[in-house]
């Protein structure tokens, strides 16, 4: 299992690198969409069907929105060659990332390895979800009953985003 996930994640990394470095913005956006679709496969392998359904549709919609923005705009990234300063800053960033990666690899040694997760809070969700919330789908039980307050907040986030989009896309700002 771990191997399969790692291989798919490797492909996602390649896709991400292509998305970042592609010259054409449309192919960059589509590569990003492919990374999102690979995530769906990971979700299915990790036994999360709810997430897979949501992610596949959300990713499609994100892709449509992004393509709608890029479509009939200037698609080429005007790409100038890096000067010395650019090389130095890129090297610094990569060095910093390597350092953080090493730090990460060291710091996760004491934690649970993949697949041996123990439960503390969620134990009672699994034991209690069916009798307490009456829901056969444990994720729906958690989302709407045990953590329903989060879900309300999240619905409000979406409404806020809609209001924000409507606010930003007004044609005239001041009278």
């Amino acid at each position, binding site marked *: 299992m771990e191997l399969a996930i790692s291989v798919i994640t490797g492909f996602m990394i390649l896709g*991400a690198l292509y*998305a970042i470095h592609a010259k054409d913005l449309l192919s*960059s956006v589509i590569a990003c969409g492919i*990374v999102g679709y690979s995530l769906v496969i990971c979700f299915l392998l*990790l036994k999360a069907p709810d*997430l897979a359904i949501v992610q596949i549709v959300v990713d499609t919609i994100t892709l449509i929105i992004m393509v709608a923005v890029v479509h009939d705009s200037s698609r080429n990234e005007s790409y100038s060659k890096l000067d010395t300063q650019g090389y130095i800053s890129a090297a610094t960033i990569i060095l910093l990332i390597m350092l953080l990666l090493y730090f990460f690899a060291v710091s996760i040694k004491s934690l649970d390895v993949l697949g041996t997760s123990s439960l503390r809070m969620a134990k009672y969700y699994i034991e209690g*979800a069916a009798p307490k919330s009456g829901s056969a789908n444990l994720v729906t039980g958690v989302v709407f009953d045990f953590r329903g307050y989060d879900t309300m907040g999240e619905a409000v986030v979406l409404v806020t985003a809609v209001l924000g989009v409507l606010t930003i896309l007004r044609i005239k700002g001041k009278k």
Partner: protein
Amino acid sequence: MIAYIMCFILFFVGLYGVITRRNLIKIAVSLSIMEISTFLFFALLGYIDGGVAPIVDPADPIKVYVDPLPQALVLTAIVIGLATTAMLMAVIIRLYRKYGTFDIREIKNLRG
């Protein structure tokens, strides 16, 4: 452990893109890659070997389920991510109409 490290590399690929790219769309793409890696991280946290998807079958209740809590968190986070992407896209399309370009080097009224 290797899966977690790969996931973290994906996160840093996104961060690298946000810092080094000079194009509005590329920055948005990099942010959504960071977002994807975070979702993957949460899904990895909940996985249990031999577990089944967390849907109770009343006929056969004794099973090992994967942890439903991280999945619930990701469900919330995906929709929040969609909201932030939509906001970012709205600002980007507006900026494009004002300046006629996606290049951030030409969009520099404010400094500091």
